[in-house]
């Protein structure tokens, strides 16, 4: 789910090798080099506050404030460049396994030009989808287009197939998500106002070591979702909320539908989600999953927020491959971690969205978290 981005990321962003040790990144890079063309001498990964999955995958570094660029040669020392003054570099150094002290980043093109001159061989480039046109052009002049294309494909494939340590971190993220959802339920049950309840849930995530927590909420019983903008004291029942948490780089997310009275929409959505999760296994096509969902909804109108998609992959981004829209043509693979959703908005004015985080295996899927 798309959510509001914060102007400055605050949370546990220091590298925590007990979760993702240096060997993990060494193994990722070894696999990357194995799959890239032999003449690709270095890979450059760019990231900003909003979009940074490739950079984090290779370095563990999440840009909290401004842009960052890592350049990792096939042989030799990697280097991290972070936008900001020189006195900010020691803080940046805490966030990554790269031991060479970070350097201030002025423009990605300038850093790439220095490397290009030094190694005189193709450099692949990944990330950078938010680069402005002028910066993008300067980068494109320096990197090898074919190497960049191949590197993009390779790293997306690697990121999609979650490794054991990645799964372990995602499980911990799901445990935080579970605690947040429990707190939301408790606050709702205690009659707290809608925004107060959601914020209490967010606080639980913070206290459990999250890097970031985000939420969406509904003021109208689940008909629409919106970000927090101002406090709303009224108690909303049913309470529909979306909670997400980032832990050691990896996201977990979930839709929560709470009601003190019967909510037929939630019942239908839960039943449909159960069927959807049951059908999620390696080889399952997005279109087939969509049909399974629609069968489960038994003619009920899909919620506008979830209509047209049964979910997406989730990991270093809230939304990544596979994107399971009806027309995507995607097929689930063993190693995928997905957020699957079912939403109902019926003619009787009942609304609900529920979801599950699943790890796809060859024979089925393991539920990591469910509404």
């Amino acid at each position, binding site marked *: 789910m*798309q959510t509001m*981005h914060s*102007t400055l990321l605050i949370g546990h962003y220091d590298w925590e090798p007990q979760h993702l040790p240096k060997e993990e990144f060494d193994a990722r890079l070894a696999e990357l080099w194995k799959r890239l063309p032999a003449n690709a001498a270095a890979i450059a990964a760019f990231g900003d506050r*909003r979009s940074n999955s490739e950079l984090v995958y290779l370095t563990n570094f999440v840009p909290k404030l401004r842009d960052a660029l890592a350049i990792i040669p096939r042989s030799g020392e990697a280097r991290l460049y972070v936008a900001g003054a020189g006195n900010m570099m020691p803080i940046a150094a805490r966030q990554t396994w790269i031991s060479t002290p970070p350097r201030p980043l002025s423009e990605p093109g300038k850093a790439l030009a220095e490397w290009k001159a030094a190694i005189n061989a193709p450099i692949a480039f990944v990330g950078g*989808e938010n680069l*402005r*046109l002028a910066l993008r052009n300067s980068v494109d002049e320096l990197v090898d287009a074919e190497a960049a294309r191949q590197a993009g494909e390779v790293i997306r494939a690697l990121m999609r197939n979650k490794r054991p340590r990645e799964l372990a971190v995602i499980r911990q993220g799901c445990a935080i998500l579970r605690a947040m959802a429990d707190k939301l339920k408790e606050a709702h049950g205690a009659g707290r106002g809608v925004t107060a309840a959601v914020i209490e849930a967010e606080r639980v995530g913070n206290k459990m070591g999250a890097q970031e927590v985000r939420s969406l909420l509904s003021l109208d019983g689940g008909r629409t979702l919106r*970000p927090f903008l101002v406090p709303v004291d009224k108690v909303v029942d049913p309470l529909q909320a979306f909670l997400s948490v980032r832990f050691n780089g990896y996201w977990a997310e979930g839709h929560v539908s709470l009601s003190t009275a019967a909510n037929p929409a939630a019942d239908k959505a839960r039943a449909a989600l159960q069927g959807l999760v049951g059908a999620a296994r390696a080889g399952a096509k997005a279109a087939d999953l969509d049909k399974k969902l629609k069968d489960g909804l038994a003619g009920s109108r899909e919620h506008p927020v979830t209509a047209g998609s049964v979910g997406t992959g989730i990991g270093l981004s809230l939304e990544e491959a596979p994107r399971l829209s009806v027309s995507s043509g995607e097929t689930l693979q063993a190693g995928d971690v997905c957020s699957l959703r079912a939403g109902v908005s019926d003619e009787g004015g009942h609304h609900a969205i529920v979801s599950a985080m699943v790890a796809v295996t060859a024979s089925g899927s393991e539920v990591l978290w469910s509404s």
Partner: protein
Amino acid sequence: MNIQQRRDKVIDAMKEQGVELLLGFHDNGHFIEKPHPVMLLSHFKSVGDSVAMLGADGGLHLITSPAWEAERAAERVPGAVATDDLIGELGRTLQKRKIPGNRIAVAGLAGMPAAFETAVRKLIDGEPKGVDAIVLRETRRKTEEEIGRARRAADIAEKTQEYMLSIVKPGMREDDLAAELRWYSKSLGAEDNFYMMTSGPHSMAVQTPCGRVLEKGDLVIGELTPSYEGQMAQICRTVSLGPASEAVKVKYALLVHAMKKGIAQARPGNRMSQVCNAINAELEAEGYGQYCHPPHIKRRGHGLGFGSGLPGDVAPDNDIVLEEDMFFVIHPNQYLPETGYMMCGEPTLITANGAETLTRDMARLYEVAV
């Protein structure tokens, strides 16, 4: 001034330039220092990319993303469209309006991702006229709504600082303290908070909080910058964990004194550079002239987003003339060799009578018993 009057001023400027339609863009990366044409023209803070379309006839249209934002967008701009295909919707809207490319102006486009800018340029038949400077100029003064929000944000900042004093102690991680304060300010109504915070016995500058564990004798320095409905206010404060040294007390008093001198210069008709120079003069008189310039310091405050960063930096080279309803923070945050970096700063509104600091209590050195 209200937002309609602001838009009317922008429209006057558009007409002078022969512009029939202004497209103000912003992506989903709301950043304290990034001008935000969509918020400036519509007061709408979007989840995704968005474009505000202002016609010379006064009509305002908003296209935003994602599609499920439709109702919230329409609450702010009646008739607003929310879509998962912003470029497609913009293209269809431009086709209907049939306005020649040379009569379309853009603001914020150069701050959008490359692929987005390229797609917009294809949609516009001709080279779009960049009018970022016009939009910013005409939005240099805050609207009544923005000033009201700034007051709320300043109140939240002070209450969050009070909360900080009640919880900060040795043994806490910086990032745990920062996350708790960010949460607290949100519980008071801040939808975002630019909170830079650093601890240590002798810091060189303020930075993003990290996993450092607070210790007795640290100075905890920070700039709390809550945003209320999209308008930020900032206070800068310094907290000593345990009794502060005599040097810290004396030098902090010097910073506060310098800040007051700067605030006294913040009045209509004066230039921003006068505010900065008044602060620097006090520090230079005490022999700290070399620390009043880069690399130690480059500005003594700045405008406050989200929206327009004007009136810009409190810097010696900023000659913008101060006007009523301009809003910015004055902060003589300073590295001094005897103490390390210390912070004090107040959100300041220019009124007809001079500067109004929006805080109840001006910065002072806080000492927390440990």
